[in-house]
């Protein structure tokens, strides 16, 4: 298990979050493309799917907000140059979470531990991320089953009945998985373990992490400068 890689991921997530807030509106698109390319190239293409999904999401979101603002009288120039903290934060948080999600959970947990993030928070975050695909899987199977039986498709009432029949197995699955998790955590003394070394001593980054961090910083600075030049 490599703690440094987890730390890289957290640092990159933090940088992406802050550049989302700093870089203005439309310039977020080229800035994000460059940022994603940096992360993808430096980390050997491990984030390609994440990046594509994120860019599609962002483009849809931006087009919606920009259309609304344009209709309500904003100029095209302001749509490009003026900053929108909310949109940037949406972008930054979304990408940062996606980046943390795609990493190996053990590495991320160790990295959180080094940064003195409460163990309970890190555990809860990673548990939810791990359980979500299972929930989707169970949900899809239940829906397919109900469609085969002809229950799910029969109007509004049928859909409500289908929902009622899906939510039960979902809750049972979740309770079962989490009970097992909780028991194994207690058996291993998860919350009684001593903390790892204090912050600062154990925090190390890989070479790739440092390179991508520097490139991301330069990227943010470059796009801020472009915004100033345009305006």
């Amino acid at each position, binding site marked *: 298990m490599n703690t440094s890689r987890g730390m890289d991921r957290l640092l990159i997530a933090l940088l992406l979050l802050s550049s989302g807030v700093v870089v203005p509106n439309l310039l977020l698109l080229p800035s994000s493309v460059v940022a994603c390319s940096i992360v993808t190239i430096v980390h050997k293409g491990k984030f390609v799917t994440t990046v594509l999904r994120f860019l599609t999401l962002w483009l849809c979101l931006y087009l919606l907000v920009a259309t609304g603002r344009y209709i309500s009288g904003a100029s095209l120039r302001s749509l490009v140059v003026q900053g929108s903290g909310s949109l940037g934060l*949406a972008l930054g948080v979304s990408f940062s979470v996606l980046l943390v999600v795609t990493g190996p959970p053990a590495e991320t947990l160790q990295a959180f531990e080094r940064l003195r993030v409460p163990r309970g928070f890190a555990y809860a975050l990673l548990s*939810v991320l791990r359980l979500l695909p299972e929930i989707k899987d169970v*949900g899809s199977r239940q829906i397919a089953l109900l469609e085969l039986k002809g229950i799910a498709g029969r109007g509004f009432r049928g859909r409500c009945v289908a929902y009622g029949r899906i*939510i039960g197995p979902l809750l049972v699955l979740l309770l079962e998985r989490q009970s097992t998790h909780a028991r194994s955590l207690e058996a291993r003394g998860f*919350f009684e373990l001593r903390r790892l070394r204090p912050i600062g001593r154990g925090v190390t980054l890989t070479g790739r992490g440092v390179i991508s961090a520097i490139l991301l910083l330069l990227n943010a600075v470059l796009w801020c400068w472009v915004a100033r030049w345009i305006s």
Partner: protein
Amino acid sequence: MTTLSRTKFLALVVVCACLNLGTGFVVATIRLPFYLDSIGTVLATMLGGVWAGIACGLLSVLVGTAYTPTLWAYAGTTVAIAGYVAAVRRVGYLQRLIPTVFLGLGLGVVSAIVSAPVTTFVWKGVSFSGADAITAFFSATGETLLNSVVLGGIATDPVDKLVTSLVVLAVLRRLPKKWFEKPQA
């Protein structure tokens, strides 16, 4: 605080956050005209108290933002939902049917009022949901944007929260008694 209570608290928060996010997926797939995205928050508040509800809501918002980028701005709404549920549980909410119905509708009104400033000032009135059509209708009648968003929310949220409350009531009636022992935050 014992280790057991802490583990139980975390397990509850994780289960309910997953329920919030997973239910959204199921609802979207079977095309129900509700969001039902706060079932977990209400359930966590009922079983674990206000802190469990807040933790569950914030965790759902954090993870959900990866899939719905606009969600982060509604973190305050989840906190308000947990606070409201914790406040009204003493008057029979989610224990008897009639108070559940009325207080469930009240939950919708609270949720609409708390969400409205966020939708208005952060997203300029666009909530990326079906309520936008109702907001546009009120806006066309000459109401201010904030009023239109509040009215649009009040037209849609109470029904959603009523259904949420009824689903949670049904779930609570089927859960084993041991889950009602309140864990400590």
